[in-house]
């Protein structure tokens, strides 16, 4: 029975993995080595700013080991959602690293870059044609939302990866991708059915996460017609039927219905059988082809600039009157900011109280404050950095000096750990899309460029 062995190095390119784990994986003669490079989990800033959330130093380290291993073994190296968010600057960051490393190490290969950043006019054309759909509770997509976006990426399926490999690329760097796509592509290209191919990708996109103990490390998955086998390459880790089954819970809304471009992976009838004490076979997954191929969009728009300050109180009298105190601070700030020309609608002031409801906000079920000190994060978002700084300075001063009933600490309410106490935190972005568009072809939104290194 034909089989394809896929090696993933870790959950995110740049999270690190033991070099011995990569070598142990390569010794199993995999048909590819790959890594998912991104996630929307660190928030909208990275897609908006064009920066990676893993450090370039750490990305370069992982990339160098993977690249050397792939070229030495004559197998493809495939990275999805390069640079964390998979936009044009993110993809170029990783491509430039690959070119540098190849020059330093004397490596030669054909490289494909699959672009995922979307042209606004194409998206607006799809809206006009009625070929966009909202996901979840989103409203239908409109042209204004498209126009306001600072960056839009489409989430590619396996097809562009399959095309790049068909065209002879040994190194394939993808922009924003469905996390399993780079791995599923290699299995589907070998004529394996979509169900085990997608399932394999689901396991591999997080590296060794389906094993225990958890850690950023390598996972080898063998794909066959009737299922997949998962095994971590580091001998300190093992896959068990429950550790593998539970990976289906990770970062998704349902453990049994996984929506992907082109269809849905249904894992409700999966069987998990231990092959050894470290390897698990999964079978019984099904793939339901969708009526129409769809590509999910992610987008962000800039909503302002942030400035923050951190302080704390050790005063039990203030803690006992916290809510009215914060109300008077906010009222003072509103009046004084208006005096210097910044209207209330031009900024948002949020004061988070750690020790009270700093983690859960309105969903915090505990209302009594049990601690002897409270930490505060003063957060101002305004339309430009100067206004944010000005309102923050006023908020900081009023946290320090606003009077409250029974106050004894007349020199100041707050301990500030730093000078300067106010920190500009740069632009703030908002996620604005969770929609799909229906393309004519799975590859049309993802142009591929090739280069010989």
């Amino acid at each position, binding site marked *: 029975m034909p089989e394809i062995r896929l090696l993933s190095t870790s959950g995110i390119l740049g999270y690190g993995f033991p070099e011995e784990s990569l070598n142990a994986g390569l010794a199993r003669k995999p048909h590819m080595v790959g890594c998912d490079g991104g996630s*929307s*989990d*660190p*928030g*909208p*800033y990275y897609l908006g700013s064009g920066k990676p959330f893993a450090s370039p130093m750490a990305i370069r380290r992982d990339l160098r080991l993977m690249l050397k291993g792939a070229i030495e073994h004559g197998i493809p190296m495939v990275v999805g959602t390069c640079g964390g968010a998979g936009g044009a600057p993110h993809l170029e960051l990783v491509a430039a690293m690959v070119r540098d490393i190849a020059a330093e190490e004397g490596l030669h290969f054909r490289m494909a870059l699959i672009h995922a950043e979307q042209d606004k006019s194409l998206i607006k054309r799809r809206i006009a044609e009625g070929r966009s759909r909202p996901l*979840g*509770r*989103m409203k239908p997509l409109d042209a204004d939302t498209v126009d306001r976006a600072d960056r839009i990426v489409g989430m590619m399926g396996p097809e562009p990866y399959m095309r790049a490999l068909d065209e002879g690329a040994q190194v394939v760097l993808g922009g924003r991708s469905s996390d399993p796509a780079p791995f599923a592509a290699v299995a589907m290209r070998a004529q394996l059915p979509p169900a085990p191919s997608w399932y394999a990708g689901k396991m591999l996109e997080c590296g060794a996460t389906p094993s225990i103990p958890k850690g950023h490390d390598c996972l080898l998955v063998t794909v066959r017609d009737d299922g997949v086998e998962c095994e971590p390459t580091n001998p300190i880790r093992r896959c068990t039927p*429950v550790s593998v*089954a*539970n990976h*289906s*819970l*990770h*970062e*998704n*809304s*349902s*453990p*049994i219905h996984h929506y992907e471009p082109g269809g849905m992976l249904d*894992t409700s009838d*999966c069987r*998990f059988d231990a092959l050894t004490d470290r390897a698990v076979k999964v079978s019984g997954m099904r793939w339901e082809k969708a009526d129409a191929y769809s590509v999910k969009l992610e987008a962000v728009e800039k*909503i302002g600039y942030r400035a923050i300050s951190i302080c704390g109180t050790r005063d039990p009298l203030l803690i006992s009157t916290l809510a009215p105190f914060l109300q008077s601070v906010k009222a003072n700030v509103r009046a004084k900011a208006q005096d210097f020309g910044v209207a209330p609608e031009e900024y*948002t002031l*949020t004061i*988070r109280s750690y020790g009270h409801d*700093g*983690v*859960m*906000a*309105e*969903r915090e*079920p505990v209302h009594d404050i049990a601690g002897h000190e409270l930490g505060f994060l003063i957060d101002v*978002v305004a339309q430009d950095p100067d206004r944010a700084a000005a309102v923050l300075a006023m908020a900081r001063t009023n946290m320090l000096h606003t009077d409250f009933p029974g106050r004894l600490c007349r020199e100041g309410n707050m301990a500030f750990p730093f000078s300067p106490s106010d920190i500009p935190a740069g632009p*703030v*972005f*908002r*996620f604005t899309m*969770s929609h799909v568009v229906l393309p004519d072809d799975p590859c049309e939104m993802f142009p591929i460029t090739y280069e010989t290194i």
Partner: protein
Amino acid sequence: MALIRDIAAVCKSKNAGPFDLTIDVVFDNDDLFERVRATGVLCPALFARLYDVAEADVLFTPYPAGRAFKATFPRLVPAGDIGDTDVYGCQQHAPMLDVDIPV
């Protein structure tokens, strides 16, 4: 009577995309999973009450293969937006820990 903090193997929260939060409660063995399921305590109404969301917005899935229950519902604020307190959504599980399950 038993609190989730005393009988569960895992109780965690995380983003399911930027607009939803998902909570997983996992048990150590099939027997305990089935006994918990039989009580009916873990259900959409419980999550609606603890997280102040409409019951219709809770997607609740028992997952026997993983001995787990999963509930997914809207975040208070989209991840990273103004007013968000937990960009990764991984510290929203605590109200579950004190849920009492009569097993």
